[in-house]
């Protein structure tokens, strides 16, 4: 069984456009997910631009705070819900700090969508296992909502989400919604609980093995911090998933987002243009143990 | 000298007294030498000492782990001592092989002197006070003193001050400090706007390759202030303003640690006369605090120390 992952062919761009010029967008809502993660709902200022815009789950964009700089994040909302767009940011450096200071009504620069996307076509009619850790749920939730909005064309859906502690769980409103939704099997886990936590406690890989989804006609899609990915991949292998049944996203520092500036180059791959979505089989083919 | 070096280096490696020998080998470009860093005895034969050993190798002990047998000229030895004062290197981890130095040839000057590209020279030998340059079908004799780096005229310590093994006999210093400072004095005599224009023009050329910083033994910060982005003191791209501020701050950071080895200027691909700034600071630090870089092993780094009697006539 193969899931095909495509390359970004740059067709999101219209002829004559200057690819480096961002759209000016308006922040409509700011959600404080955890103490260092925020989600921003944002929208085009121009209705025509909005009507022309399209993207696919898994694609990312370059976001900028004018005067501070640009940074790369995935579009975390679903293309099936184009009322507004969303992105989520963990505060780690200069630009993310500036983004965190933004409030409703402020403006950001936005250019994209860039990169490839989750292979929606080839996962049709399959069981789906989503495994997300921390802010790694951001790209997954775009796909999850996308899938749920077309629920009938997919088989069983398992979502496993984990974070370090209950306070570190992002997208609690999504988690709640999926928990209530009988069309999905939702599992939430934390590495360490606290007094009020009544849910599951445990690291993602062992919990995944305990849930034990069958690899039969199934695709696993995983995203999270590198250490979690590493062990999740091992668990999936243990459960019998082959390398092309596993889809993940790579993260490298990016600047241009369009395969020129050279930062995200690993082997002959530019993560921005050839990824960020890869099957585990693909990653194995170009990425040796180190880079 | 070269044979003595090979002999000593071989012995050091063989006896396990050092893990690496850090010296000079022939470069792959005509008449240039290149750092030779090796732990293999068979490479020892490639070590050279000649009038072209420009690099200041004292940059390496802060990077390479293990015991090093390191070849130093006078100025390099002072850089090394300065690093010891700052606790950046440990004296016990090094066997210092001192090269008494009569001056290093500035390839650019040599080219000007022979009126041709140095590529066209076949062979160059030092005979007494002259360099004999063999060209295609001709031979040119150039006085050695006309082709050495400016810094070498101001060198008061051509013989290394700190060493375990001195590879040759001591060299007496050139008493031509005036000649070495000539450019600085002339520059100081121009008026302030003229000086500012000069540096503005120079730093417009800067491409921020950071070679000046990276070759400098005194630039040992774990993270350079230009690489800090919160707060961002200096933009990462090169406007002349930022280039100049970067270099001025770097100059102040290495003031009192600079042995005037001139590597910053030699390395600069766009030919900014960086040594002018550095040498000026050497003079000032000496004049103000009677401190010379790396001359006294037991001295404090100049800016971690103070005297109650330090000059302060400029303070209101």
């Amino acid at each position, binding site marked *: 069984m193969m899931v095909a992952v495509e390359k970004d062919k740059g067709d999101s761009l219209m002829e004559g456009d200057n690819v480096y010029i961002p759209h000016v967008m308006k922040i409509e809502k700011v959600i404080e997910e955890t103490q260092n993660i925020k989600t921003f709902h944002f929208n085009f200022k121009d209705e025509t631009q909005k009507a022309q815009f399209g993207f696919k789950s898994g694609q990312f964009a370059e976001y900028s705070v004018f005067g501070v700089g640009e940074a790369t994040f995935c579009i975390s909302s679903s293309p099936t819900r184009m009322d507004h767009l969303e992105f989520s940011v963990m505060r780690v450096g200069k630009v993310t700090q500036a983004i965190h200071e933004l409030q409703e009504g402020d403006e950001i620069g936005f250019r994209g969508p860039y990169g490839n996307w989750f292979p929606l076509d080839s996962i049709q009619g399959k069981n789906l296992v989503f495994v997300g850790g921390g802010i790694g749920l951001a790209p997954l939730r775009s796909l999850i909502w996308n899938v749920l909005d077309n629920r009938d064309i997919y088989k069983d859906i398992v979502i496993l989400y984990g974070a370090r502690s209950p306070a570190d769980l992002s997208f609690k409103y999504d988690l709640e919604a999926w928990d209530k939704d009988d069309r999905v099997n939702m599992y939430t886990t934390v590495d360490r609980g606290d007094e009020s936590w009544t849910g599951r406690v445990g690291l993602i890989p062992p919990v995944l093995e305990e849930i034990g989804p069958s690899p039969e006609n199934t695709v696993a899609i995983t995203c999270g911090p590198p250490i979690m990915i590493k062990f999740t991949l091992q668990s999936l292998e243990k459960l019998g998933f082959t390398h092309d049944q596993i889809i993940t996203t790579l993260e490298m520092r990016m600047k241009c987002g369009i395969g020129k500036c050279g930062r995200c180059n690993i082997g002959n791959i530019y993560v921005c243009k050839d990824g960020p979505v890869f099957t585990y089989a693909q990653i194995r083919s170009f990425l040796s143990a180190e880079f | 000298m070269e044979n003595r070096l090979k002999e000593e280096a071989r012995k050091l490696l063989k006896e396990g007294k050092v893990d690496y020998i850090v010296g000079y080998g022939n470069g792959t470009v005509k008449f240039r030498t290149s750092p030779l860093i090796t732990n293999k005895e068979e490479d020892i034969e490639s070590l050279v000492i000649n009038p072209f050993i420009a690099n200041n190798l004292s940059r390496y002990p802060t990077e390479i782990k293990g015991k090093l047998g390191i070849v130093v000229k006078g100025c390099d030895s002072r850089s090394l001592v300065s690093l010891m004062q700052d606790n950046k290197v440990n004296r016990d981890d090094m066997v210092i092989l001192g090269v008494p130095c009569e001056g290093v040839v500035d390839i650019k000057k040599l080219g000007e002197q022979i009126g041709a590209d140095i590529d066209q020279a076949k062979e160059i030998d030092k005979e007494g006070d002259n360099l004999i340059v063999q060209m295609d079908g001709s031979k040119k004799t150039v006085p050695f003193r006309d082709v050495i780096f400016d810094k070498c005229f101001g060198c008061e310590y051509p013989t290394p001050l700190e060493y375990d093994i001195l590879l040759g006999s001591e060299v007496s210093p050139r008493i031509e400090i005036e000649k070495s400072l000539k450019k600085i004095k002339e*520059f*100081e005599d121009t008026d*302030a*706007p*003229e*000086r*500012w*224009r*000069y*540096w503005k023009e120079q730093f417009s050329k800067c491409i921020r390759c950071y070679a000046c910083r990276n070759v400098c033994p005194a630039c040992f910060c774990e993270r350079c*202030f230009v690489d800090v982005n919160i707060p961002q*003191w200096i933009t990462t791209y090169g*406007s*002349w*303003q930022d280039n*100049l*501020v970067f270099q*001025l*701050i770097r*100059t*102040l950071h290495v*003031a*009192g640690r600079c042995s005037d080895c001139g590597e910053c200027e030699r390395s600069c691909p766009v030919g900014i006369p960086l040594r002018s*700034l550095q040498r*000026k*600071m050497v003079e*000032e*630090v000496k004049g*103000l*605090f009677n401190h010379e870089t790396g001359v006294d092993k037991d001295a404090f780094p*100049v*800016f*971690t*120390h*103070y005297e*109650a009697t*330090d*000059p*302060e006539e*400029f*303070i*209101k």
Partner: protein
Amino acid sequence: MEETKWEPKVVGFLCHWCSYAGADLTGSARMEYPHNIRIIRVPCSGRIDPMFILRALQNGLDGVLVSGCHPGDCHYQSGNFHARRKFAVTRKLLEYVGIEPERVQFSWVAASEGPKMAQVVKEFVEGVRKVGPNRLFKDEIRDGE
């Protein structure tokens, strides 16, 4: 036209324990000193990185005053002694590259020296006024000057 309207704009980095208190005293004693100065309080004159001085000038301020406790009076024992060494070379370097020495001034002002503070600021601002607006870091082409 513009020249007649121009007023120097300078910054003063004053140490918390002496010079800032001195400036405070000037104020509470209702002594006048030029309004051209904006004061930034720092813990100690030793805190002043030459970078602050250069960045202030780069950003278009006409002058920078750094003031701390008299030698021997430093709240942190030796902060001002270290600062003194730093400033001594800094001013030499700035002068060497062509920055007018009048633009950068160092002083020792104690908490009790209100009048001295006023005097220092006054003299400094006058000195800066003499050398004129700081155009050092202006890019002629970009700013059309």
